[in-house]
């Protein structure tokens, strides 16, 4: 190879360290200002949507089933990039203009809603029928059964796959730059564009994503531990 290893070149090494140091702060800022809020808000809305969609899929009302199916099929079947594109640049031609951040939240929530709905549907279906019946028998309504008996148990089952969904979401927020939200990955690109150290900056961005994922896995561990209170091992 004609490129020497960067480690054997002290000047370049120093330059890289300098760049890495000075770029961490803006990257972290963008993470805190956009990447994380966008992820968290979208995830919350997405989960609500997902529960509703899952219930629609499970329901016996054909039209609810159909709407839910079509929604999930479209969202999962087409790239997120295109969805954001249409939401942000397509809708204005129909007279609907949404600001960048809300548009991003809508786009990502719709995405999470579709993916998570399958997880939640499976989780709800995995709760033994006897639990519904026991709830019924003590006189609970559908909503009460869901809220007090089924969803608490389904949460336990769906925690690992939902944390996957969240991890994907966090990384997908990098697409928000396409619709004018300057999230962390875009900042990395901006910095790299001036110093041409793409590998370094992308590496830093990856590290930050990884830290978020790692933090998430800790949270997940604690939640699982809490749930495990009532599960034998």
């Amino acid at each position, binding site marked *: 190879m004609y490129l020497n290893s960067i480690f054997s070149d002290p000047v370049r090494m120093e330059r890289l360290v300098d760049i890495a140091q000075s770029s961490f702060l803006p990257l972290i800022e963008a993470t805190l200002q956009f990447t994380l809020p966008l992820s968290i808000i979208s995830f919350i809305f997405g989960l609500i949507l997902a529960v509703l969609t899952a219930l629609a899929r499970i329901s016996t009302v054909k039209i609810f089933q159909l709407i839910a199916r079509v929604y999930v099929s479209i969202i999962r079947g087409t790239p997120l990039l295109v969805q954001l594109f249409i939401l942000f640049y397509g809708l204005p031609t129909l007279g609907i203009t949404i600001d960048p951040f809300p548009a991003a939240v809508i786009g990502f929530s719709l995405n999470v809603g579709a993916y998570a709905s399958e997880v939640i549907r499976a989780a709800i279906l995995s709760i033994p029928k*006897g639990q519904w*019946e*026991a709830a019924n028998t*003590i006189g*609970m309504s559908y909503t*009460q059964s869901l809220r*007090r008996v089924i969803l608490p*148990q389904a949460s336990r089952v769906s925690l690992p796959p939902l944390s996957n969904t969240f991890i994907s979401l966090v990384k997908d927020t990098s697409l928000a730059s396409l619709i004018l939200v300057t999230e962390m990955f875009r900042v990395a690109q901006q910095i790299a564009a001036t110093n041409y150290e793409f590998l370094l900056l992308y590496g830093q961005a990856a590290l930050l994503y990884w830290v978020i994922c790692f933090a998430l896995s800790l949270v997940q561990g604690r939640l699982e531990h809490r749930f495990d209170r*009532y599960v034998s091992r």
Partner: protein
Amino acid sequence: MISIKNLHKKFGQLEVLKGIDTDVQKGQAIVVIGPSGSGKTTFLRCLNTLETPTSGLVTIGEQTVDFAKPLSKKQIMAFRKQSAMVFQHYNLFPHMTALENVMEGPITVQKQNKKLAKQKAEQLLIKVGLGEKINDYPFQLSGGQQQRVGIARALALEPKVMLFDEPTSALDPELVGEVLQVMKDLAAEGMTMVVVTHEMRFAKGVANEVLFMDEGRIVERGKPEDIFNHPTEERTKRFLSLIQDTD
């Protein structure tokens, strides 16, 4: 206390209950026996409207319902309140302690005062012999203990009638006794009970009457000693020979 007239239940094409007529006096304990698939579980579930009967006129406690007619949710709820169900596999809520399981109905559904509901739940758990275990989760309890929580949970609803679907058949042999004891006590206190069970100790010792079901019909009905010793129907005889010692 219970009166059933021409109760039918179909699953799609399959007619599982083909016209049940019977009634149960207040304070009586009735045992239902019969081969697998004969409709015993379906019968009990119809009484608690876990399955909606296809037709039939059923009275439990103060509520009479004609299942041939469309029913409102409210009617069903009022009817269901008359009875409480104990399941073969307990079906406790695994994410709630014994106490929370028993309190759940009174608090969430009947909107009772929390403190009172808790007191009552504790008393019920003491009654079924689980005073020490009120804060344990189901997985920490043996099968027999879980089933006793299940009974306490049903009792907390203050039903007129208790329905039991093979309450001991998932239990280790030496744990059966403790659940039967609780059921015997209940019968002695005058609780009206319908019990699906093949446990001869209960059928012979406690039941006021035994009902033999086959293919969705009540084939024979009588005092336990009569049914077990001198069944009149051929089907009853055949079935009893299968479940009793043959040697």
